[in-house]
């Protein structure tokens, strides 16, 4: 195999199709969720351990940066969730073909953003 072939990978010039956008966001949101796992476990621990730690946690989460952070985490979760369900549907051959691949991608983006917005309204 010739390993000296020229490579041209200009990331800013690559325009992903919609299913590609959903796919890379699935990957990014998954990595993000993995990185904040210890924080989420710690929050679960605080919420269960005692009434004091529960109150401290809910006080801390009342501030604006914390709420914005929660919203970002929620979006990552919801996008990963919806995109994952789309992949399960594709495995069951429920969304084959280019037209359906595109429309289901649009649904994933819309539903995850819509649910994040709903949660945002509920949080405030």
């Amino acid at each position: 195999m010739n390993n000296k072939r020229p490579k041209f990978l200009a990331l800013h010039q690559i325009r992903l199709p919609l299913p590609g956008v959903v796919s890379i966001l699935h990957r990014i949101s998954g990595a993000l969720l993995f990185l904040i796992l210890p924080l989420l476990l710690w929050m679960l621990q605080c919420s269960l351990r005692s009434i004091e730690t529960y109150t401290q946690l809910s006080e801390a989460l009342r501030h604006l940066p914390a709420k914005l952070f929660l919203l970002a985490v929620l979006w990552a979760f919801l996008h990963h969730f919806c995109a994952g369900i789309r992949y399960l549907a594709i495995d069951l051959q429920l969304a084959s073909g280019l037209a359906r691949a595109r429309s289901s991608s649009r649904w994933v983006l819309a539903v995850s953003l819509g649910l994040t917005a709903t949660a945002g309204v509920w949080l405030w």
Partner: protein
Amino acid sequence: MVDRIVTGAHYGLRDWLIQRVSAVIMVLYALFITAYALSQPHLDYNSWTRMFSSDILRSFTLLTLLALYYHAWIGIRDIVMDYVKPAGVRLVIHVLVILALLLYVIWSVQILWGM
């Protein structure tokens, strides 16, 4: 007849399946918890801990967390295999991720049964 030389470690199909089974477990848990939280007229510390006092829910939670950790391992491993080429760096990241996930397992049991 095709004389095919099969190579590789043969974990592809198993991991593919585990990734989907663990995903379904997490979907069921997420729907259950959301439905429960929304059905509570007033969600506070008492109703929250009352829910987690049942051994069935604790077990369901731990099962979901174990599914999550295995799911995370397969996902992170795939990302690392795609972007990290030097074998040494890749090995170090893999070991650190596995150690972290094993610690999360212990921590999860402590959170759920030590409250």
